[in-house]
């Protein structure tokens, strides 16, 4: 009688563990890529500083910044937009040749539309490395 009861309880526990494990696995596996909006930036710096870091040692800067959410301030040197996307090129004050290419999250398009070339802005986005400019994707404008 007693053994039967223990067996029953053990089976229930194992069942719960298996279902719980599977549910956790499924949750982790299907967890969506987090939106940049909810992530605190790992680094905050100017467009000048970021560009200089990549120009002096691209490999080192890639290791440090690529994959991280960072916040960059600078002046809008170029703005390209269509219905579904918007990109700013930010430059620094000291280094007009510096460039950070920021492409906005679809959720931030309306917000980004309000700014124009020459405006000083602060942008948060995920750095993916340097192509011709340093690239930030999934950007949001942040207020200082």
């Amino acid at each position, binding site marked *: 009688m007693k053994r039967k009861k223990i067996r029953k309880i053990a089976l229930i526990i194992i069942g719960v563990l298996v279902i719980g494990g599977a549910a956790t696995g499924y949750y*982790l*596996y*299907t*967890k*969506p*890529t*987090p939106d940049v909006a909810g992530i605190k930036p790992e680094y905050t710096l100017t467009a000048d500083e970021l560009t200089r870091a990549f120009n002096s040692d691209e490999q080192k800067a*890639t*290791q440090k910044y*690529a*994959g991280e959410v960072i916040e960059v301030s600078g002046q809008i040197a170029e703005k*390209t937009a269509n219905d579904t*996307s918007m*990109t700013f090129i930010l430059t620094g004050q000291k280094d007009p040749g510096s460039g950070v*290419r920021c*492409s906005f999250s679809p959720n931030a398009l309306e917000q980004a539309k309000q700014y124009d070339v020459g405006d000083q802005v602060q942008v948060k986005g995920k750095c*993916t*490395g*340097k*192509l*011709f*400019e340093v*690239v930030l*994707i*999934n950007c949001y404008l942040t207020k200082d």
Partner: protein
Amino acid sequence: MKNSVLILIGILFISANIYGQEYMTRSGYIWFYSQTPVEDIKAHNRQVACILNTETGDVGVTLLMKSFEFKKALMQRDFNRQYVESDKYPKATFEGKITDLSKVDFSESGKYKVPVSGKLTIHGVTNKINTDVNLTVKEDNVIAAKAMFIASPADYDIDIPKVMRDNIAKEIEVNVDFELKKR
């Protein structure tokens, strides 16, 4: 090898300033699609740079692997860490040529299908690829380019762990959508 390709593309970009027959974009769109009975996976990259010389037919494309966005966080992490090792190989490049320039008249608006062949480097491995590209020559100095080709992870020494083998297709469909503007 990888460096020489990058230098070549660099030269292509610099020479674009000297000769006037270059069209380019830095916000081209490439997405790839892996379809299996278990799972469909898509990833999008909207920060692709491409340059086309309409005189010689030379084409250069380069992109950052980390700019690919996945719906699932874990998939994006595994892609970067395990599959393409984007810390070690941050860029993918294509260097090629329109092999038959007689198929297109860049001075005339319209749709053209041109054969393109060249070398694609992903994960530090270079393979030759051939594909047809649909070009739309538009007014106001814009050329739209669309293409689709198949890439196999195995050809680029990308090792998919056993547990994921049913989830990731042996042949990945790569789609290209560029809007090139005259420089």
